[in-house]
């Protein structure tokens, strides 16, 4: 065992993977936690995703480690959700249909939201925002998490979600509108 010969040993590869992946574990877990909506499943998804990532590590060419890992976390979640046949409504997401009527009905009013200061007050109520986010379809939830919590660019989000830039923009708009309406609906006394 003293001489391993030329090339990288398994341990070397593991160390490299460790160095690349460790700093992004929080981001991976945060995304998984928002997608699965509970800590136990988030653990499972992240664990499975990291095993996959390690297996595919040979194909990783450096660069955006975070985006690469988040792509794998996301794919793992959707595969996992499909297999479990749980979260059915999350998996069967209809881009065009989701909340579109609400979008059209409330677009102008919501965009010109007459009372931003009021919403500001509500923003202080973390629990309300969290509950409203958790009620959104997974595709809306993930895009808001990637944009607002991870502060990723449209380009990075497009790469992770696997859709064109235009879809990132339109999906973000719909997600925001639906979230706003959700918060307002839940805030009714």
């Amino acid at each position: 065992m003293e001489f391993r010969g030329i090339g990288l040993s398994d341990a070397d590869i593991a160390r490299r993977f460790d160095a690349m992946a460790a700093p992004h574990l929080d981001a991976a877990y945060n995304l998984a936690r928002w997608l699965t909506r509970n800590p136990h499943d988030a653990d499972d998804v992240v664990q499975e995703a990291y095993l996959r990532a390690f297996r595919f590590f040979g194909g990783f060419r450096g660069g955006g480690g975070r985006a690469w890992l988040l792509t794998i976390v996301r794919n793992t979640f959707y595969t996992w959700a499909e297999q479990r046949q749980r979260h059915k409504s999350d998996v069967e997401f209809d881009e065009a249909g989701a909340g579109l009527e609400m979008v059209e009905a409330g677009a102008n009013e919501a965009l010109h939201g007459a009372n931003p200061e009021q919403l500001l007050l509500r923003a202080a109520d973390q629990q309300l925002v969290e509950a409203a986010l958790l009620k959104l379809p997974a595709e809306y939830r993930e895009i808001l998490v990637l944009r607002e919590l991870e502060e990723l660019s449209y380009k990075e989000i497009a790469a992770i979600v696997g859709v064109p830039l235009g879809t990132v923009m339109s999906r973000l708009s719909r997600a925001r509108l639906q979230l706003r309406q959700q918060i307002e609906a839940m805030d009714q006394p």
Partner: protein
Amino acid sequence: MNTMNCEEALQLLPVYGDGELELPRALELERHVESCAACAAALRSQRALSRAVRSAPYHRAPDALRARLRAQLPLPAETPTAAAPSLTRARQRPRRDWSRWAMPIAASLALAVGLNFMLATQRSQDSLREELIAGHVRSLQVAHLSDVISTDQHTVKPWFNGKLDYAPPVRDLAQQDFPLLGGRLDYIAHRQVAALIYGSRKHTINLYIWPAKDGELAPNSQGSEGYNLVHWRHDGMEYWAVSDLNVQELRHFAELQIAAGADKTANVPNS
């Protein structure tokens, strides 16, 4: 310039709020928002929603999960032999490796700051490249290639006088099959810069020039979105050549520019 109407402004507001709107449009939008109470309210409302989402919990990975993930990697276990070299032992001691996963808060904060800085630098390079390509593409699309159309460097060079606070070197490379086509002012990285337009067979090259902050830099090429960019620094100037020309020829163009800098007969003296 046409002023932006509310319909356009409302469409662009989210992109603006996300910091993804290109500068000229962002400036137009800001002008509109300044004079339109409804759109200003929409922007405030949008920002409030963004803050609301950011107030939602960020779930950090539990330490137990970090430990479990590490345990699954084929990292070497602690060596039982006391005779092993101390360096190896230190590297392989699990507790030490542990510390990387169960990082103390201070260290991870420092790392986060460092990473953010790296990302910010990376992003600003990316966005500069995007701006340069956007400028190149725009110049071809809107038939606004040149403000001064001339194949004569002695016409192009003085045209920049008084329009910029520096004098871009204008070189004629017609002999080397890169004829000068004209010059233009462009707005890159928050400043007015000189753009020289050269032809090469059917291709167009935009050469952006502005004063450099530091040192010399040999030409290095970078591809992006189907365009090639070659970047170099020479004689106190920053140069970016953008074209759909293949990368070898674009580099050759860069070498010719540098060589022409040394050859005084190819230069137009500052007037």
